[in-house]
């Protein structure tokens, strides 16, 4: 089931009402059943994969707590991680590595005897696998007690709001919430519903609307002029932000209605003044996952400069691979690693130049830094969006080797695109700079609040794209 479907608009209130009507001791069962139902909408049989990892990690957690021998503990952790990564390797990466192996063998004059697997990628596999891994790592580190209630643990992995596209929660934040009794709280309900409404706006009015132009241009890029490809790339930068942060808003909002508080996943990333700041604002739950479980174990900042750069590059390359089994994602991740290394290596030099020019702080300096960060991120998105490296290369050539012509498409739709971006920009500026004088959904006057809710609902109904399909991040 996807959030932007009519089925979800029926599913959500039914589950929420039942949640508050049921006694606390049965609520986990309701949420677990609802989560199974939610997941089985995609491909029912794949729920067995989830149960496989849930059983392994649940058992590993209990034994990790029981066993005192560090070697045995480590072995248990490795077993649990291998099971999780093994599932990812089979379902997500096997065909990718096999295709590359075929290419190498073909180049050497051999034929690859290993057959390709005829399987579909289970939806959101990387998200719940990473969430499950964070549990066993935290139990291993002694930061989290092993969960004895199988149903609660299963719910931790499968909680439907964040099951297929995050935020990737930590057990310390989420597990205990399933045991706490949540009473019907009007503040939680109204704040949750508002958050969901904003998420729907981002997804169907902005992301899916922009995707029409982006798809048209990217799928036929040799026919388009440079300005068109630049605009489509910028549109894609906004599209992917709204698609993913819209999903996170709906996830956080729908959990909040029932009294659950999920971690924030985005903090207006396109206001970042550097790539490192961008990563503290974009997909925060994944960035912190990689920081806590990969970057710091590799030595973090307390290593030589060379090793630090290697660690950074490796983490971002793996992050690229996490997104998808394609060289385009690996290049995308590596590019961000490269940006960060360049940023670190030139930091002092850039600061000195800015000081000399008098651009160190102030509006102009911020504007330049934000614009340059957006430019770098947008170039990287081209690799993310392209279906192959030749296509990404073709798109970059299309931008940098000037070709005249500008594509508008359906004028009304083109106008909607800019209206949607303008509305988003106002909302984000208001959030970023705490402009409380412009309150709509949070206005103290109930009449204005209600008019704002209705206005937003009707904007979604009139301008949203309802055949936009899945969220981009579901495929990961």
């Amino acid at each position, binding site marked *: 089931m996807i959030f932007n479907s009519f*089925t979800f608009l029926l599913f959500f209130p039914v589950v929420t009402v039942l949640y508050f009507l049921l006694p606390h001791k049965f609520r986990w069962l309701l949420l677990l059943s609802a989560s199974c139902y939610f997941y089985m909408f995609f491909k029912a049989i794949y729920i067995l994969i989830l149960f496989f990892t849930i059983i392994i990690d649940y058992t590993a957690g209990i034994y990790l707590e029981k066993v005192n021998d560090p070697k045995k503990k480590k072995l248990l952790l490795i077993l649990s991680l291998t099971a999780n990564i093994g599932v990812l390797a089979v379902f997500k990466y096997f065909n990718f590595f096999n295709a590359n192996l075929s290419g190498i063998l073909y180049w050497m004059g051999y034929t690859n005897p290993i057959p390709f697997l005829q399987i579909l990628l289970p939806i959101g596999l990387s998200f719940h696998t990473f969430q499950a891994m964070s549990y066993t790592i935290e139990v291993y580190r002694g930061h989290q007690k092993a969960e004895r209630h199988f149903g609660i643990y299963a719910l931790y992995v499968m909680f439907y709001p964040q099951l297929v596209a995050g935020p990737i929660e930590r057990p310390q934040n989420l597990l205990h919430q399933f045991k706490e009794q949540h009473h019907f709280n009007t503040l939680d309900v109204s704040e949750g519903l508002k958050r969901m409404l904003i998420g729907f706006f981002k997804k169907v009015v902005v992301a899916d609307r922009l995707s029409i132009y982006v798809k048209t241009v990217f799928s036929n890029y040799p026919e388009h002029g440079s300005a068109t490809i630049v605009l489509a790339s910028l549109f894609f930068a906004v599209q992917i932000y709204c698609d993913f942060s819209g999903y996170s808003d709906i996830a956080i909002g729908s959990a909040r209605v029932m009294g659950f508080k999920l971690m924030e996943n985005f903090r207006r990333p396109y206001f970042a003044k550097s790539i490192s700041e961008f990563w503290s604002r974009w997909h925060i739950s994944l960035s912190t996952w990689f920081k806590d479980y990969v970057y710091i174990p590799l030595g973090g900042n307390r290593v030589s400069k060379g090793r630090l750069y290697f660690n950074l590059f490796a983490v971002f390359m793996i992050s690229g691979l996490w997104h998808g089994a394609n060289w385009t994602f690996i290049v995308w991740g590596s590019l961000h690693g490269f940006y960060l290394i360049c940023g670190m290596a030139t930091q002092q030099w850039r600061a000195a130049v800015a000081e000399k020019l008098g651009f160190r702080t102030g509006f102009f300096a911020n504007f330049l830094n934000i614009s340059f960060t957006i430019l770098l991120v947008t170039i990287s998105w081209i690799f993310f969006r392209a279906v192959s490296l030749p296509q990404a290369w073709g798109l970059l050539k299309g931008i940098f080797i000037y070709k005249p012509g500008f594509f508008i498409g359906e*004028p009304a739709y083109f106008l909607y695109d800019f209206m949607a971006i303008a509305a988003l920009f106002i909302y984000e500026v208001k959030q970023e700079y705490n402009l409380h004088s412009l309150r709509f959904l949070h206005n103290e006057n109930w009449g204005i609040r209600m008019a704002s809710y209705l206005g937003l609902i009707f904007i979604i109904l009139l301008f949203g*794209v309802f055949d936009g399909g899945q969220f981009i991040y579901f495929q990961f």
Partner: protein
Amino acid sequence: MKQLKGNSNKFFIRLLMMAVAFVAVDQIAGATLYYFFTHQGSGEYAVANHVVYNLNEDVLVLGSSRASHHYNPSLIKDSLKLSCFNGGRDGEGLLYSTAIFELALQRHIPKVVILDVTSDVLSEKEDEKSRLSILLPYLKQSKVVENMIEKKGRLELLKSNLQTYRYNGQVVSIFQHYFLSSGNTIMGFNPLDNKMDASRVSTKTSIKPYSDSLSADNVGALNLFINECKRQKIQLFVFVSPRYNDDTQQNSYLKMKSICNSNNVIFHDFTNDVYFKNPEYYSDRAHLNSRGADLYTDTIVAFMKKKLSPAVNVQYLSKN
């Protein structure tokens, strides 16, 4: 606890008030949009609205962009002495044509219908059903339209109970064509003025012959279209209009031909007519320009004159 209960009561009362306000605004906004929608002076919906609400012509042309750009109603009227309206619409297939035809029949029965098709008209296409949203403003006016909308998804009809949802994605276009009407179509005909650069166009096609799978919905729509014509005693012509590039034979084509033959419907394929293989007549490889369209209209008129049924012919002769 008492305060919690008080807060909850207030919350639910406000929620109820908001629901009532939502329904009221939806009805008012829906009625307003309906007015502007039905009074648009130009644009594709103005053409569709004429077919649905104001059709009084003898000949109706239906089909996709190729219908809209290829059939000049003035030439048909001059030659056949039968008034004509072109109801073709860019990007739309047989499901749309059938629905709009059903709506037209509720108010007026044309004497002749020209259905312009492509060789893949009955093939399964990825986005054909999602495009049916354009019929939403005409919902509740015909059972056939409801059935078509239902093909989009089980819950589509439920969603369509919201008046505003029916005009989703149309607001700017509706106001644009109401307030800034360009009146750019001639009886629905939308001629293309540019000339194709033949040196940049390939006539080859990469689609494999007979590689398509048939869409049961499209086959059903064609049968429904033909049966309605039979029931209303409308003479139906099914034409495949010319194209510059090679056309790949599809299973759809064979099926369409066999349905037309078994129902004694006049079917003619102009795709390989050598007369129309001249690049001067084209705007792009699938669409004739205005010069090509006029020549093509003259050709089909000559063809139709020989085939018009006595009932239509009597009128044609008397007007002559």
